[in-house]
Every structure is written in C-alpha cells, then in structure tokens.
C-alpha cells in the first residue's frame, strides 16, 4: 500500500508554501544548501521515535543505546530512516522493530519523515548525515543511488539468505555493478481488480486475452456499467496501464529498454501500444483527469464500474466486511508470442547508506529479510505480500495467496514506470504527456513529445 505511487497522493497534505520555498531554495541554492537541508530532514521532521520498549532492551543495549541515540552509529543501536509516515504502516513497523529488539537487544532509532518530503529530499538526505538504513524501492530508483556511490553494498549480508529469495527479487536487488544493495521486504501486484459478487451476479467470465477483455467491456457497457474504472488526476495511475500494454505488446525487455531510453518513443512498437490504448479508452471511465484513484476505486466498490486496473492497495477502499469480495485477474495477453508472464509488482525494502555497515545494522537487515519479520509486518498491513519465498502463506487472505501465485509465476517483474525510469523523466515529462494523450488520443503527438523530451534528459 505504500509505494512511490502514493507520492502524488500524499503531496496533497505535505505541500505548503514553506516546503515550496525550501524546494526553490534547493533548486536554486544547489550545493550550498545541501548540508543545511539534509540536516533539516534528518532531525526536524519526525524526531526520533524509538520503537522499543525499554524493558526489552538488554543491558548492553540500554547502556550504549542512550549514548548512541545522537549519532546512531555505535553500540547497541541502529538508526533507521523511514518514510512510513502513514498510520497503518508506521504501527506495523513499530511492531517489527519491537520484535527485533526483543531478540537481539539492539535498539532501533526510527527517524520517521513525511512520506513525500522523504522522497523529495532523498538526494540531500543521502549526501548529508543519513541514517544507517532507510526505506526505499527497488529498480532504477535504487540503481541511481548505487551509481552515485551513496549506498553500501550488502553482498555479505545477502549471503545469509540468498536461497530464500526467488530470482526476480535477487535481480531487483542487484545494481549494474553486480553488487547487491537492496533488501526486499514486501511487494504488491498490479492487476484488474473486481468484485466477485458482481461477476457472479452478471455471469461475467474472467478474460485472458485482449479480445475477451473488449468483449467483456462491451457486455458491461450494455449492462449500464463503466467497464474499467479510471482516475488519473494525480498523473501516476495511467503509468500502470502503459506499463502493462507495453509489456504485453512488446515484451518485458523492450519495456525496460524503453525506460532506459535505449529504444525510441517514436518506435512503431510504441505507437502500437498507444493505438491499442486508444482502442481501449472507450471502455474506461470518461473524464479520468478530474478523478482520483480513490474516487475511481469507489465506483468499482459501488458496482458502477466493472473492474479496475490498479495496485493491490485498492483494497483499502473496500469496506472491511466486504474485503473478501475483492478479487483480481492478471492483465490479459495481447500477443500470444509475448505471453502474459510479466507482472508489475513494485518492491519496497531497505538500503544501507554510505555510512557503512555495523554488526547491528547487519543484524537488522538479516532480520528484516526473514519471513517472520515480513509476516509480522503484514499482520498490520495486509495489502502486500512478503518478499521472502519461504514465508508461510497459510495465514494469508485468499487475495494475498493469489497475489503470491501471480508474482511467483512471473518470469519478469517490473517496478512501475516511475521506479523503472529516471525520476527527472517520469514526473515532469511522462505524467503531462500521458494526460495529454488521455485528452486528445493523438498517438503521433504523444510519442513525438515524449521522444523530443527524452532526448534532452537522457544525454
């Protein structure tokens, strides 16, 4: 439920004129402001909230924990930068850390920063005085910092649990230099979500090909439903539609090459994707640019729309007592030679900053990679599934079980457009371009515009 996908949403609350000024200052003052700003993010935003209860800290832990609270580097404690500012994940993390302290006697000093500020200040944060470990995402967003030398490789830590992760996760944790930097914690799939009761009531069949999807859409329209719920006010949800259409039409590798701008956006293959999308637009809810994903989800919940392509966090919009009525099917196949085995399932996890590793941070990373830590977390936040493949799924809801099945059967896992490509391309360029396309449906114009701008950014 907490992905970069939420950034846009959370900006709503995180934004004010002061943070604008801060950012203006950041863009404007550049280097001079770096140490200043990063120290701000480190200390002012959340303060230190120790996730431990003092009774569980061992003698060594409590003796050194106090002195370490300031620097957070020595003794029996680890400093941990968290962007989990929402109530549900924050509580879930506190429970995880409490367990860790109970087992190891190591205190975790959690520095919680507003989700959105964390993302926006990450550059300065990592160059200033970062915490030893921090929450982040797999994919290009990890790769970028690894290339800049702002992370510590953790291959030795990985050696302890490598056999517990499937290949997709190992690849997602490895940077271009061959080192591993990332510990996966959980992920969630993107798929077409729908209400079982609606499908049963109307006798709808789950589509497995694009044609079947179109037929189903036509039937739903005849029944007075909007076939596919859609809201793109915040700009990012449409990225998921593009990712899937591109991966199903041109394959995972082409998609990743396009994200790295090794392929041109004006390539006829990309135009085919937009053409297909254009053909599907009549099945989508109209006027998506004025609707948030929550509003679109509500229309699915109220059975005004038949299905909704979104991440599993869509479940948050379901009334708790009806949660079991939520189901999903994978994005249908478009080209039988390409198949449907690529899944979009953004992974959240942890990185070690350039401060290096201590015994304590190694222990915490190992613990966080374990199935018990991940299940402990999911107990408080059930809209994800554990990354560790040995995690016991017997306690999962049917929806979670299905998600595990979908992800583990996937040959390739993408991380979502804004994590798979450069951040300076995703939000300033792709969001407005896709929104323009949703308005005018002009395939040539959107591909030309994306290519022209990509050329100025990927240099």
């Amino acid at each position, binding site marked *: 439920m907490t992905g970069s996908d939420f950034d846009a949403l959370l900006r709503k609350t995180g934004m*004010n004129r002061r943070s*604008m000024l801060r950012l203006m200052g950041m863009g*404007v003052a550049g280097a001079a*402001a770096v140490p200043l700003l990063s120290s701000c993010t480190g200390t002012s935003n959340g303060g230190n909230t120790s996730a431990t209860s003092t009774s569980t800290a061992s003698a060594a832990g409590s003796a050194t924990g106090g002195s370490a609270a300031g620097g957070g580097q020595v003794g029996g404690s680890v400093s941990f930068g968290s962007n989990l500012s929402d109530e549900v994940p924050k509580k879930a993390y506190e429970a995880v850390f409490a367990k860790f302290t109970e087992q190891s006697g190591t205190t975790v000093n959690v520095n919680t920063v507003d989700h959105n500020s964390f993302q926006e200040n990450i550059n300065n944060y990592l*160059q200033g005085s970062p915490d030893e470990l921090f929450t982040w995402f797999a994919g290009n967003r990890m790769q970028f910092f690894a290339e800049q030398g702002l992370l510590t490789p953790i291959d030795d830590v990985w050696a302890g649990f490598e056999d517990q992760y499937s290949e997709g996760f190992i690849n997602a944790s490895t940077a271009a230099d061959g080192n591993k930097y990332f510990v996966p914690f959980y992920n969630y799939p993107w798929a077409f979500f729908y209400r079982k009761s609606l499908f049963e009531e109307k006798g709808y069949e789950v589509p497995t090909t694009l044609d079947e999807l179109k037929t189903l859409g036509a039937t739903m329209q005849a029944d007075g439903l909007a076939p596919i719920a859609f809201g793109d006010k915040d700009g990012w949800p449409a990225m998921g539609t593009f990712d899937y259409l591109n991966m199903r039409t041109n394959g995972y590798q082409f998609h990743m090459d396009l994200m790295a701008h090794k392929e041109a956006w004006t390539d006829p293959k990309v135009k085919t994707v937009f053409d297909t999308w254009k053909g599907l637009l009549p099945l989508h809810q109209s006027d998506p640019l*004025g609707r948030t994903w929550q509003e679109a989800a509500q229309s699915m919940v109220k059975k005004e729309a038949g299905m909704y392509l979104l991440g599993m966090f869509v479940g948050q919009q379901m009334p708790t007592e009806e949660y079991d009525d939520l189901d999903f099917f994978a994005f249908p196949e478009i080209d039988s030679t390409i198949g449907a085995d690529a899944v979009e399932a953004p992974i959240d996890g942890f990185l070690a900053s350039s401060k290096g590793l201590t015994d304590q941070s190694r222990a915490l990373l190992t613990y966080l990679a374990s199935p018990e830590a991940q299940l402990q977390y999911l107990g408080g936040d059930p809209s994800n599934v554990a990354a560790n493949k040995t995690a016991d799924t017997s306690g999962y809801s049917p929806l979670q079980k299905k998600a595990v099945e979908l992800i583990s059967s996937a040959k390739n896992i993408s991380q979502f457009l804004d994590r798979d490509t450069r951040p*300076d391309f995703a939000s300033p360029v792709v969001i*407005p371009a896709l929104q*323009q396309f949703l*308005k005018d449906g002009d395939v040539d114009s959107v591909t030309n515009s994306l290519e022209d701008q990509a050329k100025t950014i990927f240099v």
Partner: protein
Amino acid sequence: MTGSTPIAPPAPRGGAPAAPAKPVEIVEVKGKLKKLSTTDKVVIGLMIGIPTLIEAVLVWFPAVASIVLSFGNWNGVGSLARIQWIGVTNYQNIFEVDPNFWPAVQHNVLWLVFLAVVATPLGVFLAVLLDRETPGSKLFQSVFFLPVIFSLALIGVIWQLMFSPEQGLVNGVLGTDIDWFGDSGINLWAALIASSWKHVGYIMILYLAGLKGVDPSLREAAALDGANNRQTFFRVVFPAMKPINIVVVVITVIEALRAFDIVFIINKGNNGLQLLSTMIYTNSGAAARVGYASALAVILLVIALVPIVTYLSQAFKEENR
C-alpha cells in the same frame, strides 16, 4: 520696580546662562561622538553587516548560484565538479522542446490579467464600501478577510468540496455535471475563482488601511465644492492613495507570478494548470533536474524583476519628493 524687573529676567534668560549653555552642549555632543566612536563603529558595523550578510547569503548567493546553475546539467549529487556545463541548452529546451512551458507562461499571464482586472478591483470596491462604517461593517470585514487567514490545506479542501464533479456544491446548486478540476478548458478558471477568493480579502484589508489614513478634510473640502461620492473618490481620494495603489499593483503582480498553492493542491500543476512555479517544483525535488529547474527559476526571476523594479523606482521617487 519697573526698571529692575525687566532688566533682571532678560539677563539670565537670553544672555548669560544661554551663552555658556550652548558651547557646553556642543562639547557634550562632540564628547559623546568621540567617546562612543569605537562602540558606535562596532554597533553600526554589526547593524549594517549582519543584514548585508543575511541578504548576501539568503538572497544574492542563491540568485547568482541559480543563474550559474541554469547553464549546467547536474543531478544534485556529488561535488560541483560533476556539473556538466552545457551553455544555454536548458533555455533552448525550455523554449523549444518543453510542451508545458508556453502554456505555463500563458496561464501565468492569464492569472495576472484576471487578478488585475477582476479580483483587485473587487477588493478595492469592497474596501470602499466597508470604509463607510455601515452597520455590520466590522462583521463583513472579518468575513471577507477570513480566507486570507485560512491555511492552504484548508482552502484546498474547501474548494475540492465545492468543485468536486460528483459530490460538489457547485454542481449540486447549478444542477450541472461539469468536471471543474479535470476539464483543462475550465479548471484554470475554477482555480482563479478559488485564488481570487483569497486575493480579494487581502487587497480589501490593504486598501481599507489606506482609506483610513486619508485626511478627512480632503473629503470635506470636496463635499463643500459640491462633488458627489463618485467624484470625491475618483478625483480626490484615489489620487491621494497613490502609495497604497502602487503597493496593491505590485502585490497583484507578485501574487500572480508566484501562484502555486491552489493549483498544486488541485492536480500538481498538470493538465491545463501548468504554471512556471509548479514546473520549477516538478523539476526540482525528487526529479533533481537542478540545472533545468534553475533555468526556469531564472526566467521567473526575470519576469518578476519588471514589477519589482517599477515598484522600487516609484518608491524612491516618492522619497525624493
């Protein structure tokens, strides 16, 4: 009696005591100057130095750094040596490639025109009405000023509720089905209404303060000369309010250029709501396109300089008079 009394007082009053008193005073003043000169120098040095330093560090350095960075390509990571200097490429890309730039300029201009032609005159009008001390004047003042006090988050929530397509008050009252914030042909106007709601109250208070400061005798004189209310305002009061008028104009211009908050709350400055300020925001922050965002900031700075310079030259002219 008559002889001694007149003579005696003038002597101490004008002559004897006065003569020694004056030199003493001068000496004292001179002495003070001399005595305090070292401390004074320090104090004066600090009083000038500290603001200058603050100004230099917080205003001039960022402004100059921003201009310099606008000629580079940098992701904000690592040493300054990693900046690639690419000349005016950022500006070229902004003017020629970026599809958001010209709409953003257009929207900023439209914003300015709307505030100047509709919102500001409305604020002035309200101020003139409320200046008449009609019953309930204080209440209305508070009501109109209230939006200025509200936090931006609250304003965002209020207008989201007003304009929401499905649950909004506006559509409910009008019986329409308009997508106020989603339709790119309309959402700028919706944002302008929300923004004016705040701007009107601000201008009203400024102008009201100015009106209170106008010498009432001017109005009386005008009334005696047979001027009616309208003539009194336009021919007498309005010209007398010149300093306030300049402030109001400058504030209107600056508000239009730095417009950001409401648009950002609506949709982060996309889809028909592009503004220069939201573009700077999107390109800085997580995107870390430092050079590009700086170039945008420089363009905004240049545009903003025009009214600021106009204001300053006006202000200095007033002082010189």
